[in-house]
């Protein structure tokens, strides 16, 4: 489950952008700031890796792992290992 503290969200979209399994989308309801906070897509692909929560600059997302749903957590690429190719 994902709890979005809607009025704290500024709508930067980085959670949606960086989710390794593209489980998030913009919701269709504007918050008080006039932006669309994220929500889980109907077809829930979330594996509770918590990256969206970590990357949100405004503490607006909390990820609560679903006990009954035993999906494997796929750790996203988190260490910046960029190779230089000429």
């Amino acid at each position, binding site marked *: 489950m994902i*709890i979005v*503290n809607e*009025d*704290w969200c*500024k*709508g*930067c*979209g*980085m959670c949606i*952008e*960086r989710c390794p399994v593209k489980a998030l989308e913009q919701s269709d309801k504007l918050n008080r*700031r006039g*932006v669309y906070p994220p929500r889980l897509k109907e077809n829930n692909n979330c594996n509770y890796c918590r*990256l969206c*929560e*970590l*990357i*949100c*600059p*405004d*503490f*607006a*997302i*909390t*990820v*609560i792992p679903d006990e009954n749903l035993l999906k494997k957590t796929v750790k996203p690429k*988190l*260490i*910046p*290992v*960029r*190779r*230089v*190719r*000429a």
Partner: protein
Amino acid sequence: MQELSAELIRKKYLRDEMWPSIFCNGCGIGNVLDYTLRAIEELNLDLDEIVFVSGIGCSSRLPGYINADGLHTTHGRAIAFATGVKAVNPDLKVIVFTGDGDCAAIGGNHFIHAIRRNVDITVIMVNNFIYGMTGGQLAPTTPIGSRSTTSPYGNIEPPFDLCELAKVIGAPYVARWTVSHPYRPIKSIKRGIEKKGFAYIELLTPCPTAYGRRNRLGDIKELWKWYDENTILIEEYERIMKYGSDEEKERASKMIKIGVFQDIEKPEYFEEYYKLIDRLKEGGK
């Protein structure tokens, strides 16, 4: 222990009435706070043992958001105030939030001398390549070619590499990461807080309003991507400089190095100071 979540951070560490923060949409300063609080939680520290100190700038507003004692001081003087706090009560953990302008320009001398003395503080430097709060003037960290309000045709001044500087003056812990990858910054902040002596952690932080927009780095997503594409791990940099082709070397030399620059042990200033006092009390000379 309950797994740390944003909701828990909010309850335990944040001053609710100050939120949502004043930072612009897409600004990375909130991430710096997030990573710092997660490091503190992982170290199991009590907020009463910590004092947050900052100077002036967007980044220096951070102590105001934390439900702990903090000093929001004058421009460039955060490290001087932090040294004062440490002098009065060496048992406190002192964490400094400072901007690149605050730390490298007006506060440059405090920075080098606190490192030279090796005062036991943790300096978290928010490097957004620009003076954010005052509308985007050139900072000593602005990359060559970048546009700012005071370099409208592109910067011609070579920037400071504060990690290299801190390293040569002998700071026991020096690291630089980008905020776009959370785990390494958290680890480094933990290590920095634990380190006896001066710890310098620089976090490359997007500022879409004053820097990104003026330099046409695209929307927030593009800007965040810029940080991934223009940074290189020190180990990889060194490998290329040894074994790479000329083209690879050329490309790598244009990128910003990230990683742990230094991790050593050294005598800490106030430990030495109190040892001296004890020696004199016992009638020594």
